[in-house]
């Protein structure tokens, strides 16, 4: 599309949708802009497992922007659910059919529908007290269970499970993580960092059982978690933290190409010329048209939202960057960039604790990934090294006296 579309409708008020809206206006887009989300004003999700869950951040401060911002930026926020996307033939504008009965036509539609928490195929998933965490309402429902004397069983010790465990402990609840992996998250952060993080759980009184749940049963006011290996846990609440699944129903019904996510190019273009997609629900096509990984991180949602904004305006999207995410638990700030599991070697810097960093060097000597706790700007610098593709001396990476920032600038 050579000229900017006269109107754009964004479906979904997560980071991807909001980033797109914000970037459109920042780039000077003056057309009609609408954002449709069932809850209305967009809010941020990372605090849902941390400050918001702990009760130290209220719902108003969870919002990505105050109501005035939407007025100032001439953006209509429509609190409604999109029941159907009528894509049109490419020559005519797509139409969003809303739950209220309203029909909203826009020259271009951005699908930023996000993902939903994955449910496990277990008996008892629908019992009261069996919860997932995806929305602010979910977090408030979970919070009600996190009190002294409670015992929360968390199925899945990935990012969400681990963060909730940390928050639950600060609120005085007992926590048992159930995860089949000996070192949960090792594929994401590498075994060395995963080992350190695992130790944090133990150090804060969070139990880890290496198993999977076979069923959840009602036990009077409590719940029973039957384990595949034969054990049984008694819980006051169960959190299922088993990852997410992309919300692609609208796209599929509209006939878009979907394969574990709405397939997009680097500018968020789908298989339909007037429909774009971004965020957790999207999956970028790589070289040769092969679908790449579907990223679920905040930063990926922001970047793909901004890339789609550029795509909708017909301008080049920002250059890609190494995948990056952060996580907080037990007062420790973890950052990870790139991949920690490519073939090669891991170089460790420092001792487990603040500043502890693991670098993953590929077989070609280039930096592929970094994982660090309380590492400050070093991770940002390491991201730069990953993106540069420079071959690096492991001895320099290992030496705490070598400033990674200077290394990234070619000064060390």
């Amino acid at each position: 599309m050579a000229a900017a579309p006269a109107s754009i409708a964004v479906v979904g008020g997560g980071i991807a949708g909001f980033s797109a809206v914000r970037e459109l206006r920042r780039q000077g887009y003056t057309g009609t802009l609408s954002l449709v989300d069932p809850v209305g004003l967009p809010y941020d999700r990372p605090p849902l497992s941390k400050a918001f869950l702990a009760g130290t951040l209220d719902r108003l401060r969870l919002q990505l922007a105050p109501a005035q911002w939407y007025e100032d930026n001439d953006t209509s926020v429509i609190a409604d659910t999109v029941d159907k996307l009528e894509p049109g033939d490419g020559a005519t504008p797509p139409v969003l059919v809303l739950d209220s009965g309203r029909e909203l036509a826009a020259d271009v539609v951005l699908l930023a529908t996000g993902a939903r928490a994955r449910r496990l195929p277990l008996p008892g998933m629908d019992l009261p007290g069996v919860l997932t965490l995806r929305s602010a309402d979910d977090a408030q429902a979970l919070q009600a269970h996190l009190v002294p004397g409670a015992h929360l069983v968390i199925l899945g010790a990935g990012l969400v499970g681990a963060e909730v465990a940390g928050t639950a402990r600060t609120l005085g609840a007992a926590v048992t993580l159930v995860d089949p992996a000996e070192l949960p998250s090792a594929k994401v952060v590498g075994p060395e960092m995963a080992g350190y993080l695992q130790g944090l759980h133990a150090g804060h009184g969070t139990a880890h059982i290496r198993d999977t749940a076979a069923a959840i049963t009602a036990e009077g006011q409590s719940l029973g978690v039957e384990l595949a290996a034969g054990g049984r846990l008694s819980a006051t609440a169960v959190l299922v933290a088993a990852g997410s699944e992309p919300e692609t129903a609208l796209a599929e019904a509209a006939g878009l190409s979907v394969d574990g996510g709405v397939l997009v190019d680097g500018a968020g273009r789908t298989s339909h010329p007037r429909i774009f997609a971004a965020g957790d629900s999207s999956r970028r096509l790589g070289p040769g048209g092969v679908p790449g990984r579907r990223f679920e991180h905040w930063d990926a949602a922001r970047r793909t939202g901004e890339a789609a904004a550029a795509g909708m305006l017909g301008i080049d999207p920002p250059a890609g960057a190494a995948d990056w995410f952060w996580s907080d638990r037990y007062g420790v700030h973890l950052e990870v960039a790139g991949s920690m599991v490519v073939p090669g070697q891991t170089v460790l810097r420092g001792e487990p604790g603040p500043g502890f960093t693991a670098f993953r060097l590929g077989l070609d000597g280039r930096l592929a990934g970094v994982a660090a706790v309380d590492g400050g700007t070093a991770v940002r610098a390491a991201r730069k090294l990953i993106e540069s593709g420079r071959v690096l001396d492991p001895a320099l990476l290992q030496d705490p006296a070598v400033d990674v920032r200077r290394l990234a600038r070619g000064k060390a």
Partner: protein
Amino acid sequence: MSEGIRVADVDEIDEGEALTVDAETAGTADDIAVFHSDNGRFYALNDTCTHEDASLADGWIEGDEVECPVHSARFCLRTGEALCLPALTNTKAHRVDVRDGAVWLYPNVSPLDA
């Protein structure tokens, strides 16, 4: 124009580094970070990310942008514009001059007025 503050000799702030001038010294409400970017230029912004209370002086400085070390909000070093989420609010930019081998900060003077 307010009176300038001699912050440092040029060679006292490496490229890619920044130093902080505290609010009392600057006579401002906020600390000010003075950046020496890898493009050789000096800039100054209020030293607090508008997303959370992180020091931008500790951030990644490149070209005319700085990236917050905590959640990677980026700001334009020339104007203070918040370039991406999670920061939504611009920060304040101040004028910096290099004169006689020294870096001079002019608190509360817009760099765009230079």
